[in-house]
């Protein structure tokens, strides 16, 4: 590079730099706008991430994150060797996959059906009613489940008895736990889950449908060949996010529905972390279990995203 050229490019660099600096100085107030959020994420998300090191230490509260003694993989080994390891893994994956298989297609189906209905009072009513359970708190949902499924006083068992069958002890029978959990989730979130698909469907060009009608396509054919392909990118994105979250099962409801009798099938990694860490104060051990869970999750998310990117051109990043 000749000296002239380098002088020019240096000048340009300086120009870019001063432009950047001017931007920062001119907009210094914008940094104040972002400061509260930045501080929040550092304190409540990044400091805990830093604290994950206690998974490899024997945490003593008085010594803090840094001062506690390193013990390597001791806690992980203890977890992998424990008799409950496979049960926890099986329950966590079992509930998640069950939930995904049943819960993922239903909002799509309901959205396609709603899309076929005529705009008007009836459609609006169905939407308003099916969205509503989304706003009921998890404590109330759990209370409803327990009350409705009671073997002696619950309405579900009264209905079962009405048809001449034996009442079922849903909440104390481990065999029923996963189904109860998944179906109550379907009841609560299917309607709300349609919104994102309905938004995608409203973007379909009406001309496509008109052309299909002229060509003699039936309603069903138009759904199969126009509407469903429209939804595919949304489905892929949501599927990636769901699969990436498979180990991060929303455990607030599980914790509420858990009781000693159904523990066999309701004990999942997240509730175990709560039990071991916060109730039994085995901080390091519980943090190790939680970290194991988070790492599996991150690997799954990256893997699924990679597969999606290769096969469908739609991916999170």
């Amino acid at each position, binding site marked *: 590079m000749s000296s002239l050229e380098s002088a020019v490019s240096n000048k340009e660099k300086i120009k870019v730099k001063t432009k950047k600096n001017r*931007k920062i100085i001119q*907009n210094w*107030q*914008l*940094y104040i*706008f*972002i400061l*509260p*959020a930045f501080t929040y*994420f550092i*304190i*409540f*998300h*990044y*400091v*805990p991430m*830093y604290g*994950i090191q*206690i998974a490899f230490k024997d945490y003593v509260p008085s010594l803090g994150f840094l001062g506690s003694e390193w013990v390597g993989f001791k806690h992980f080994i203890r977890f992998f060797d424990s008799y409950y390891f496979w049960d926890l893994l099986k329950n966590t994956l079992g509930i998640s996959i069950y939930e995904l298989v049943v819960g993922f297609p239903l909002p799509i189906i309901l959205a396609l*059906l*709603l899309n*076929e*209905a005529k705009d008007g009072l*009836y459609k609006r*009513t169905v939407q308003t*009613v*099916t*969205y*509503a*359970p989304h*706003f*009921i*708190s998890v*404590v*109330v949902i*759990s*209370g*409803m489940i*327990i*009350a409705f499924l009671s073997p*002696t*006083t619950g*309405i579900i068992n*009264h209905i079962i008895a009405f048809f001449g069958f034996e009442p079922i002890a849903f909440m104390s029978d481990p065999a029923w736990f996963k189904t109860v959990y998944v179906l109550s989730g379907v009841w609560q979130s299917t309607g709300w889950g349609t919104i*994102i698909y309905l938004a995608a469907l409203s973007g379909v060009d009406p001309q496509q449908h008109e052309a299909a*009608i002229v060509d003699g396509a*039936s*309603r*069903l054919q*138009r759904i199969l060949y126009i509407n469903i392909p429209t939804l595919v990118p949304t489905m892929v*994105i949501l599927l990636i996010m769901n699969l*990436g979250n498979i180990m991060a099962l929303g455990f607030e409801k599980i914790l*509420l529905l858990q*009781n000693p009798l159904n523990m066999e099938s309701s004990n999942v990694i*997240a509730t175990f972390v*709560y039990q071991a860490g*916060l109730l039994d104060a085995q901080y390091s051990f519980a*943090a190790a279990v939680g*970290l194991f869970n*988070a790492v599996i999750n991150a690997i799954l998310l990256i893997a699924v995203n990679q597969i999606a990117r290769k096969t469908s051109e739609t991916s999170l990043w």
Partner: protein
Amino acid sequence: METSTLYETKTDKLFKFIVYCFLTFALIIVLYPLIYIISASISNPTAVNTGEMWLLPKDITLEGYRLIFGNDSIWRGYGMTIIYTALGTFINLVVTIPAAYALSRKDFYGSGFFTAIFVLTMFFTGGLIPTYLVVKDLGLIDTIWAMVLPNAAAVWNIVIARVFFQSTIPKGLEEAAIIDGASNFKLFFKIILPLSAPIIAVMALFYGVGHWNGYFNALIYISDRDLFPLQLVLREILVLQDMSSNNANVTGEAAQLINSQQQLAAIIKYGVMIVSSLPVIIVYPFLQKYFVKGVMIGSLKG
């Protein structure tokens, strides 16, 4: 999908009929438990427990509600929840809206860096135990702050608000204000905020419902009963009580008393479900379109 009936074939009509059947089925499945709760909360407890009452209220009584409104811990829980919701939502807005606005500005140097810092926490977190220890070390356990600071912002909501600012605030407006010599503060408070009412409403709703319905923060950070939010009181009534009442093995008069109390306990349960969900249920139909709008803005960027 509105198409003229002119084109409809027989199979299309049949298809339409099936569509409406399924929609009605979905409607009934969702609606039935809700109606049942309302009816059960004002019916004779015996009729509820024996299954005699299955849809419409029977022997209407307000005894359940009388007991609920006479209960101190429910009132206190209600009060605490109102405080947590108001304070928490206020903090959420103060953290979310300015940050989202800054991120929406093209001339904000470092917005990529800040976005990455925020979004990463959606996929990887410290986890329950380290987060708990941080909150504990900050001395927040058993204070109001434990209920509002650990979830002062949600990444997804910041993203939604940023998309709103990017897509609705005309860039020319900002440029003109800056050329006129307005500072970013002045621009934000005098021009941007007055234009942001819709997004502030959506955010307040999302965060507000979250605070109202949340129980987990309280479960892990609050042990002082005076600070219990409504959801923790509900948990005792709806979830814990049921488990202990199962192994009651008493006979004679005591059994009768417990029995009558248990009968009442049933309608109290249904009553508290209504009472606790009431504020959300009342506002929901009016604000439905804002909630939906929020989800849709999110899906744009999704």
